[in-house]
C-alpha cells in the first residue's frame, strides 16, 4: 500500500506543479477547458481499451449504483472546483487553500458512519495532524 500511496502523492504533486506552468500561458478557464478536452480525447479512449482488455464487453455492464455514486463524486468534485475559484475571488488564496485542506476529516467521518470503517485513536490523531500540517503549508 505504501508504494501505491507514494505513487499517487508523487503524481498528484507533479500535476499541481504542471497546472501552475500552464497558467503562465493561459487563463484558469482556458486551462480547465484544455484539461477536460485532453481528458476526453486521451484518457477516456485509454480507459475504454483497458476496460475491454481486463473485463471484455461484460465490463461495460456497469451496476446502476456505480453510476449513481460516481455521478455524486463527479458532481461534488466539480462543485468544489468551481466554489474554489469563486472563493479565490472573495478571499485570500492562502487562507482558502489552508481552510479547505481539512476535507479528509469529512471523508473520515462519513467512512466511519456509513462504511463502518474502523479508525484507531492514533489514526484520528494522524488525520488531525495531517490537516494541521496542510493548513500550515498554505499560511
Amino acid at each position, binding site marked *: 500500500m505504501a508504494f501505491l500511496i507514494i505513487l499517487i502523492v508523487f503524481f498528484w504533486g507533479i500535476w499541481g506543479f504542471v497546472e501552475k506552468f500552464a497558467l503562465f500561458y493561459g487563463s484558469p478557464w482556458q486551462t480547465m477547458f484544455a484539461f477536460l478536452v485532453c481528458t476526453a480525447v486521451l484518457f477516456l479512449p485509454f480507459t475504454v481499451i483497458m476496460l475491454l482488455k481486463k473485463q471484455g464487453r461484460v465490463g461495460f455492464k456497469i451496476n446502476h449504483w456505480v453510476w449513481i455514486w460516481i455521478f455524486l463524486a463527479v458532481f461534488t468534485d466539480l462543485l*468544489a472546483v468551481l466554489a474554489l475559484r469563486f472563493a479565490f475571488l472573495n478571499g485570500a488564496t492562502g487562507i482558502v487553500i489552508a481552510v479547505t485542506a481539512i476535507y479528509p476529516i469529512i471523508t473520515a467521518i462519513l467512512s466511519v458512519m456509513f462504511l463502518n470503517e474502523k479508525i484507531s485513536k492514533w489514526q484520528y490523531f494522524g488525520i488531525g495532524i495531517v490537516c494541521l500540517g496542510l493548513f500550515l*503549508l498554505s499560511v
Partner: protein
Amino acid sequence: MATLLMVVIIICWGIWGFAEKKALEHGTPWQTLFASLVFKTVFSLPLIALIFYFIAGPQGFFIKQQVWLWMFIAVFTNGVAIIVIRFVLKKWGAGIVIALTAVYPIITMILAFVFLKEHLALTQVFGIGITTLGMIFLNLK
C-alpha cells in the same frame, strides 16, 4: 461569502472521497473510472465551454500550444494518480487513504521551490514536518 464557499468546498471534497469508495463497492476500478470520465465528458466539458464562452467569447478558445502541452502532461500525471487511487480505495478504507493522499501539495511545493525558485516560508517547512508526522500516525493501528 468566502466562508460559505469554503464550507461548500470542504463538504464537497469530503463527499467526493466517500462517494468514490461507495462506487467501488459495486464495481471494479476500471468501471468506476469509465463512469467518471463519461460524466466528466458529457456534463463538465459542455458546461465549462458554455461558461467560458460567456466570459471570454469565441476568442477565448484560441488557446496557446503551451497550454495544451502542459495540460497533456497534467492529464497524464493526474490520470496515473486517478487510476492508482481506485485500486487503493478498492482494498483499503477511504478515511485513511484520502488523508494520506491529501498530502500531495508537499510535492508540488518542493518542485516549485526547486524549479520555480519559489520562496518556502518557515511555517511551510514546519507544515511539511507536521504533515509527515501525521502520516506516521495514520499508519499506526
